[in-house]
């Protein structure tokens, strides 16, 4: 009944044409592009990898073998757990957490400066210079990082010219190029929610804290950050999810000996030709990301609505 009233209200407010359009587009987006693929993926992850002829046949039954595989590995292996895949999974999650923290530490001062300190044209110029690099394709940007961090790259040249190192530092093998690339890729997704949150803070609150004797760090800890909490959690969850789910940057910038979990998923889908196993791995990553978001919301005591603000 409430839904009916809401819809009726919605229709009278927006007119029939616009209402049908909005509901249609949003409905299509949610159902066909988000829910349906995930349902298929979920279903897939519980099936055996059968040749097309046998699909739907008597052998097509549900199984949890792919999840078991992620945990315990092949029955032929000597380890009791799937050490390789689990290590990659854990490393991916931990690295994504660090990339998120790193981005927050870099972006918070920038967002604060833009929102509370910078004025007019200068602020616009700064925002523009933040945005412009993102007009370049993600893959090209990753290659550019590869060039910068390479053994003959600008950074190594500079370090050697200054005499800090004698031989080129292996930034790519040590995954530093990857962390930098991932961190950089999501800078805007951290800055904008932070900026939005900090911008609506009344300047007088900052001045009042200062007037009451507070040093700058306490003003941030007690006044600005609590106020910006929804923005902080929004930015952090987005950066975490996207770095945990990144594929191009790890592919291009990752060291030869290190894999990203998404690369394993990709391998199962693509070269491995085992879609059900790839689906199972993808579902595990998805659920982990959701749990992470819920955890962050719990820790920061924010509601989903506040994050979306």
């Amino acid at each position, binding site marked *: 009944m409430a839904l009916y009233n809401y819809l009726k209200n919605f229709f009278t407010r927006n007119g029939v044409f616009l209402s049908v359009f909005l509901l249609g587009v949003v409905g299509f987006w949610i159902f066909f592009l988000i829910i349906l693929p995930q349902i298929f993926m979920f279903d897939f992850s519980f099936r055996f990898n059968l040749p097309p002829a046998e699909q739907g046949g008597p052998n097509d039954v549900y199984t949890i073998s792919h999840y078991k595989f992620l945990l315990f590995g092949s029955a032929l292996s000597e380890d009791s757990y799937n050490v390789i895949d689990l290590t990659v999974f854990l490393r991916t999650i931990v690295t994504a957490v660090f990339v998120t923290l790193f981005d927050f530490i870099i972006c918070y001062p920038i967002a604060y400066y833009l929102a509370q300190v910078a004025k007019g044209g200068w602020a616009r110029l700064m925002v523009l210079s933040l945005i412009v690099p993102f007009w370049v394709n993600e893959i090209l940007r990753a290659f550019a990082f590869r060039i910068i961090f390479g053994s003959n790259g600008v950074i190594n040249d500079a370090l050697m010219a200054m005499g800090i190192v004698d031989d080129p530092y292996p930034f790519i093998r040590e995954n530093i190029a990857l962390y930098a690339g991932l961190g950089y890729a999501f800078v805007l997704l951290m800055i904008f929610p932070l900026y939005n949150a900090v911008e609506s803070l*009344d300047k*007088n*609150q900052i*001045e*009042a*804290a*200062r*007037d*009451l*004797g*507070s*040093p700058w760090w*306490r003003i941030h800890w*007690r*006044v600005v950050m*609590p*106020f910006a909490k929804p923005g902080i959690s929004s930015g952090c969850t987005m950066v975490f999810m996207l770095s945990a789910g990144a594929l191009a940057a790890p592919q291009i910038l990752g060291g030869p000996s290190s894999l990203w979990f998404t690369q394993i998923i990709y391998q199962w889908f693509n070269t491995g030709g085992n879609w059900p196993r790839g689906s199972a791995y993808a579902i595990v990553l998805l659920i982990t990301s959701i749990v992470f978001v819920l955890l962050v919301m719990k820790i920061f005591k924010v509601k989903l609505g506040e994050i979306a603000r």
Partner: protein
Amino acid sequence: MSADVRLENVWIKFGSFVAAREIELTIKGGEFFSFLGPSGCGKTTILRAVSGFLKPSEGNILIGGKDMAGIGPNRRPTALIFQNLALFPLMTVWENITFALEVKGVNATERRKKADELLELIALPGQGEKMVGELSGGQRQRVAIARALAAEPEVLLLDEPLSALDLKLRQHMRTELRSIQRRVGITFIYITHDQGEALTMSDNVAVMRDGVIEQVGDGTTIYDAPGSPFVASFVGENNLFRGTVESVDNGMATVTTTVGTLLAKTPVTASNPLKVGDTAYVFQRPESLRFAKPDNQINRIKATIVNEEFEGNFWQVYFEVPGSTKPVKMSMVNDGSSSERRRGEVVELVCEPELSVALAEGPLAAE
């Protein structure tokens, strides 16, 4: 502890705009001092300079005899109460109040005790656990005062903190503020555009116009002996008659105006002395005017009644006089006698020379 505040030749400029010009002022320790003026007159600018958020372009600010140059707002012995109060919405009332103590590293139990003491002082006992948003406007006001007092400032700065309250509450808070100031005994510097607030609370008032202090004095001096046409027209209501000075003698001036020759005192506070032949203004307060009696020899003004308003305790009667487009206003105490006045009736008004003020022509307050 209270400290005096000295402003020595203070100038504050924003680019080519001069917000405060040649401010020379001493505010005594323990005094309730107000800056009164219309918006944009520079009073908030001065407050921000005293609190340390603004650096004067020229001149010195001394608090308790100590030059404040280079000392930030977090290290000055001042506490500022903002116009919008700027309470911290995500902290409880008691955390708000004791924020200054938290900064000093006082432990939580001690702070809680201090908060309860201050809540007692502002008559909000037991409300410490509430969030700021749960309080009413007047309660928030008092929490802001307590928060500033917790910092134990020697000077409390108040930037129109009552302007958001409704009339009744505002009047109540005036009395409250004054009594808090007497109890804590520190210097209060109060910014307002409301002359009622300035006159009722302050020991001394500085009236400001366009970045300049027009007059400093206690409430009665400002009201009864305004030093400039701006002060006369900004503080309280005044009827104004323009004319030429005929003679100045023994503190009294004779001015020929469109309504006749008026005799008026020339206050010693006047910034420009009157000279014979000058253009001058004669100011007469609505409550000083009354209907002329046969024995009134001088200062009689012929006027036509155009309108009257009943305000309960007062009758406001408006007259048309020759040579003036603005009606002359007279306030009469409602003494119960029924009105015998009729619109269009021509009457004669009078205002005692001692209650009339003659000042050299100068800028007036905007209507």
